[in-house]
């Protein structure tokens, strides 16, 4: 029998990988994909715990996480298109217009 701890360990490793990707990569779209990876690892934790506690609430939360991820994808990619139009690149090292 697979315990809830197995799933949570996989989710923890995935989350750490996503953090590493967000911190190291320079391409904004890859950073975006790493954030999706982190969101998905949290979803896995939610569903594993909702199965463990015999409850439905965690799975409803996953639903809302997916809604927020879809909205984030639409707005984030529109931002990237706008930025690319101004700078001809989406390297995050060059996104410093608001810095002082």
């Amino acid at each position, binding site marked *: 029998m*697979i315990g*809830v*701890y*197995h*799933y949570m*360990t*996989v989710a*923890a*490793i*995935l*989350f*750490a*990988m996503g*953090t*590493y990707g967000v*911190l*190291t*990569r*320079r*391409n904004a*779209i*890859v950073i*975006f*994909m*790493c954030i*999706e*990876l982190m969101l*998905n690892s949290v*979803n*896995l934790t939610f*569903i*594993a715990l*909702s*199965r463990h*506690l*015999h*409850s*439905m*609430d965690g*799975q*409803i939360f996953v*639903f*809302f996480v*997916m*809604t*927020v*991820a*879809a909205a984030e*994808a*639409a*707005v984030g*990619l*529109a*931002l*990237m*298109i706008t930025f*690319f*139009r101004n700078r001809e*690149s989406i*390297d995050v090292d060059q996104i410093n217009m608001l810095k002082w």
Partner: protein
Amino acid sequence: MEILFFYLVAFVTLVSGLLVIRCQSPVNSALALVNTFFCLAVFYVMLHAPFMAAIQIMVYAGAIMVLILFVIMLLNLGTESRQRYTRGVVWSSIASLLMLIVATVTIKTGQVTGAEGEITAHTVKSVGHTELIGRTMFTEFLLPFEIASILLLVAIVGAVVLAKKEV
């Protein structure tokens, strides 16, 4: 037998997760991310949540990844992949390793507690997962559901306004 299958799927998930953060080309990263999403859908099926698995494949591997791939190809990012593509590797590895250690120690030493519900694997089989989700969502979580629709509307308007050349 089930534990062997679990380890196989976990291995594939973690390897494709590693490919997401290590591939130089964004398109390869995106394809590895699709693979990760499919493996997570397999996990959801193993956790007796087939509806979430279907939603995972349709929304994540379908809609969101198509959006990301479209933008990658629209911006034509293949040309800058030959330059240096990472920064601050040492500090980031330390930070993510610390996060991993904290998470695994918490998981190993902690106890899962909480209000127990009455939905077992047997209930899911006899009633159906979709019906259970629908019942919970449209009774207990009706207000968050409506707020989520407003959020999606705002996202649509925001994306159109941002991506248009002249408003």
